[in-house]
């Protein structure tokens, strides 16, 4: 009787919406934080390997060497937990002479935008009929741009409030960096909207499920596990997937993809565009004066932004949660989970790529970045839009 009542209550549409949204936010947020700490660990390991080192390998579980002097059993995986614990328990030192209010506010401003961006990312198809997007917004991509560009305020504010020259320079650089990439970033993905006809990330992904990932030149339409057994069917799917329009559209889409990818690097302050924190020139850049959890929030913000950025790239260009031969969530909860897994795998691969790039490239000077943004990407992105329009208008399927 009681249970029935609760079930009835939970199924009232608005209550249902409320608790599923809360649950989704909770789970997605926690997954993100786990991904962030794994990414930090991966960053340290990959950087070590690229530089012919071993990287953190001592912290086992429970945080000591297991078996004496041998390398710990878990390849130092305990480091993922040890790092946050260290940051949490450190003294939160605030230097004198800072503008306290803004000094405390800045890390939060850096941290919040990437987490808000997560709200519109479709991280799975459906699970038990519930859509795996926290907020299915019609203006999804616009929302991402609007929110993501807010994090620059946090950085600038941190630089200004620290009352010290190095953070200040970092903050200034950050704003000059933003004006040089943000425009081309926005323009670069207009071809995507022209092709998919929607700003809603879910619809863009649905389009990609049917017509294939945007970065691919052709796509076997309606290809499934069943058609693997029938060569004729498979052949038919391949033939149906190849079209002149698609092949031509591949060029502007690849250009879009590259520009967007590079802009995401700039957006997340990753090398080769980490001008605001340029360690070699600015000590620690905008977070020079920060310690402990305040610093950790910047750190978390940066990695959460990487995650959100990768999520955006995956949703826009790489088919989101979809994967050929894997059905979506409407075929059962198992496939729903697999879809979520696919999304996270794609995002992780992109994160690894970002790390790999970081340890490969030297930093751009910021006049170079501005030149690249204004004289390189901006005209190319504009031209790209026209190219797409011409292809869409002249070449019909």
């Amino acid at each position, binding site marked *: 009787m009681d249970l029935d009542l609760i079930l009835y209550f939970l199924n009232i549409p608005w209550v249902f919406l409320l608790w599923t949204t809360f649950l989704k936010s909770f789970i997605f947020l926690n997954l993100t934080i786990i991904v962030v700490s794994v990414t930090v660990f991966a960053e340290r390991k*990959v950087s070590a*390997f*690229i*530089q*012919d080192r*071993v990287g953190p390998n001592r912290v086992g579980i429970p945080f000591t060497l297991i078996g004496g002097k041998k390398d710990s059993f878990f390849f130092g995986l305990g480091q993922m937990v040890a790092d946050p614990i260290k940051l949490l328990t450190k003294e939160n030192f605030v230097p004198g002479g800072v503008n306290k209010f803004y000094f405390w506010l800045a890390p939060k401003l850096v941290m919040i935008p990437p987490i808000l961006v997560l709200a519109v990312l479709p991280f799975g198809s459906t699970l038990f009929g519930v859509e795996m997007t926290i907020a299915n917004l019609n203006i999804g991509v616009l929302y991402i741009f609007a929110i993501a560009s807010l994090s620059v305020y946090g950085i600038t504010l941190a630089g200004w409030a620290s009352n010290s020259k190095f953070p200040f320079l970092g903050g200034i650089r950050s704003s000059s960096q933003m004006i040089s990439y943000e425009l081309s970033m926005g323009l670069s993905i207009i071809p995507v909207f022209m092709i998919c006809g929607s700003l809603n990330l879910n619809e863009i992904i649905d389009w990609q499920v049917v017509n294939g990932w945007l970065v691919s030149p052709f796509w076997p339409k309606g290809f499934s596990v069943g058609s693997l057994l029938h060569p004729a069917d498979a052949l038919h799917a391949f033939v149906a997937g190849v079209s002149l329009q698609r092949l031509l559209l591949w060029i502007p889409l690849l250009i879009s993809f590259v520009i967007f990818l590079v802009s995401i690097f700039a957006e997340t302050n990753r090398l080769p565009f980490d001008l605001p924190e340029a360690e070699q020139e600015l000590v620690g850049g905008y977070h020079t004066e920060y310690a402990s959890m305040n610093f950790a929030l910047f750190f978390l913000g940066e990695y959460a932004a990487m995650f959100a950025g990768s999520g955006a790239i995956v949703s826009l260009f790489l088919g989101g949660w979809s994967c050929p031969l894997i059905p979506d969530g409407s075929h059962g909860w198992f496939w729903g989970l697999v879809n979520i897994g696919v999304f996270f795998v794609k995002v992780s691969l992109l994160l690894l790529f970002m790390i790999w*790039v970081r340890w490969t*490239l030297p930093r751009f000077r910021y006049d170079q970045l501005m030149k*690249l943004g204004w004289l390189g990407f901006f005209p190319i992105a504009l031209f790209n839009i026209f190219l797409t329009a011409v292809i869409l208008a002249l070449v019909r399927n």
Partner: protein
Amino acid sequence: MAIVVERPKLTLAEKFYLPAVLAGLAITWKHLKRAIFNKGIVTMQYPEEKWDANMPDWYRGAPTLVADEHGKDRCVACQLCEFICPPRAITIKPMEIPEGDKWRKVEKRPEEFDIDMTRCIYCGLCEEVCPEQAIYLRKDYSITGLNRAEMVHDKETLYKLGGVREGLVFKWNELK
């Protein structure tokens, strides 16, 4: 005269950065692939593996005091090292050698000789300035302590680290 260095002319491919970026990625990928399988790692696992055997003779480790073949202090407490030490790590309290002592003619020896290892910068000036060849920088580098007091080497520790040097020790010979 000013020398003008011509900037190299960049080809179109170089101006676009991307080919160079890809080449760089290929290089780091090679290292990554090798290091994942534990090959080509150039670093050492410090406490287990040490470089001690390859330490050069001119290595400047912890400063120590040495005794001579009679077991007497070589140091005559002239305090030259105390004066020359740039970070003022050395504190010496000299004493007069009492009447009737076998080495009375030496006149002075240190009563206390402290080197603060939290200050020492391993510059070797003390070794260079010492007229009696009493102080030497040895190869000990792992100087640790749980507090500041433990990091101050007193006379006893310094002799323990330094040991005995016999005869006239030439500062610059291979024995050090």
